[in-house]
């Protein structure tokens, strides 16, 4: 079995003395096996994502990148981690600085990580990879639609060629037709760039389209985990079944 690239082991998390947000959560991300974290609001998905991003530290338990525990003081490890793990957010309006041109936004990881060679070319390549026109770099985010803004955010996330893309509900703020196109884009990037996607989502259809593995969270605990087909096709936990039954579907086509 391949060594996990990113892993959370036995993590507990609580804010101060309040009720725990996460209880004994263990998740491993295997290269090439995209993973979905599924659950409802308040289930702890976003907190788990923050742990995986190194933005919060578990109250107890470990977060490991390539087998090494994340330590804010270990600067070379953190730098390697930042380069290897990038993120896309839910709200494409809040995730782009309105006062920076797209080119500057997309190049931020390169500048922060000190990868200053061929910056313009890399930014252009990233914008091209997400299907945005060349002149996008010199424009402001306000000039783009929601779907295009999400593409800009994805370009920023892939510009330093990371291995893992952590995405928090990356398409739930988008219209249906745009949603499908962005899912297509993420799938394409997953294949062409050997990206492993870790996605927080409540949309099981998007999960099924993008991820090979699923972990279901309920009230801070992982209640079910496994291959997407297995979890969705033969759910063992009652909550997973309820989740699947609740997805609104179109009436089946006639004929």
């Amino acid at each position: 079995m391949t060594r996990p690239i990113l892993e959370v082991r036995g993590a507990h998390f609580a804010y101060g003395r309040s009720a725990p947000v996460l209880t004994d959560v263990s998740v491993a991300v295997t290269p090439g096996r995209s993973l979905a974290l599924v659950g409802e609001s308040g289930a702890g998905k976003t907190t788990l994502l923050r742990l995986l991003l190194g933005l919060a530290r578990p109250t107890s338990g470990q977060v490991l990148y390539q087998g090494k525990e994340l330590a804010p003081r270990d600067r070379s490890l953190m730098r390697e981690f930042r380069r290897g793990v990038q993120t896309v957010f839910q709200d494409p309006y809040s995730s782009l600085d309105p006062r920076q041109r797209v080119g500057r936004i997309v190049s931020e990881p390169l500048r922060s990580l000190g990868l200053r060679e061929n910056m313009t070319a890399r930014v252009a390549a990233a914008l091209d990879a997400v299907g945005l026109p060349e002149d996008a770099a010199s424009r402001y985010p306000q000039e783009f639609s929601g779907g295009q803004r999400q593409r800009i955010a994805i370009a920023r996330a892939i510009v330093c060629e990371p291995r893992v893309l952590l995405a928090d509900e990356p398409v739930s703020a988008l219209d249906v037709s745009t949603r499908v196109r962005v899912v297509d884009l993420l799938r394409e990037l997953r294949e062409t760039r050997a990206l492993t996607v870790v996605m927080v989502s409540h949309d099981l259809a998007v999960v099924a389209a993008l991820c090979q593995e699923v972990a279901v969270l309920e009230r801070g605990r992982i209640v079910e985990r496994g291959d997407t087909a297995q979890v969705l096709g033969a759910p063992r936990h009652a909550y997973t079944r309820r989740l699947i039954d609740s997805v609104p579907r179109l009436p089946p086509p006639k004929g």
Partner: protein
Amino acid sequence: MTLLTVAGLHVRSPEGRDLVSDVSFTLDAGERLGLIGESGSGKSMTALAIMGLTPPGMTVSGSVVFDVPSLDRIEVVGAGERRLTSLRGRATSTVFQEPLTALDPLMRVGRQVAEPLRRRRGLRGRALRAAVTAALEEVRLADPERIARAYPHEISGGQRQRVAIAMAIACDPALLIADEPTTALDVTVQADVLALLDGLVEERGMALLFISHDLAVVSRIAERVIVLKDGAAVESGSAGEVVNAPRHPYTRDLVGSARRLDGALDGAIDGAVDWRTP
């Protein structure tokens, strides 16, 4: 019996952009109509125009007529604020997308539900409290007394939306307008709230104008649908027709997108992860 007649409705922004152009439809008492569109399609503006609540600066033309049996016939476009106030609550009432902003954060839930009951039905004291409890029970809120004492932030999103629904139907409106009422909710909660709306509309014989970007949700609750794009109606018909045999290219794209997502889920459930690229 025609309850609402919208004819040639036109809404223009202060900058001269047409947000809604030439939208016409009728709605019978007890009928359920879905308004489908993506962001910027003008669906919410249409709903606001129907209630006479368009933001200042908008130019509204055309005609929106309510014909509620117990009330006078009312033409909403160009009507004065007093006439519109008499319309709201009894002829029509609305549930919005975000239940947190639709409720006053500094007022207990019970008082907010009591307000329309007091105003329209003239209830006071014990009778009012009983009516509030009954209204909260009607939207299937367990432990209505506790909910009535709570502030909006102390209850869940699903509970808040139920409270908003209770307030909206408190005055027995002939038409309930629901503007993306389940979009901000979790999937399982969405399913419950849809079932609740479905039941309430059925029991009370209310007409429903259901606005959403989600084809699957609309086709679950509405009989007839209108598809809006850039402010204009591009297609209308029964929910089944539109979903199964979309005529307009835009509707075809919408249905195709929704079907692909459904297909991915079905593929996974059937044991094969399958994402057909068209």
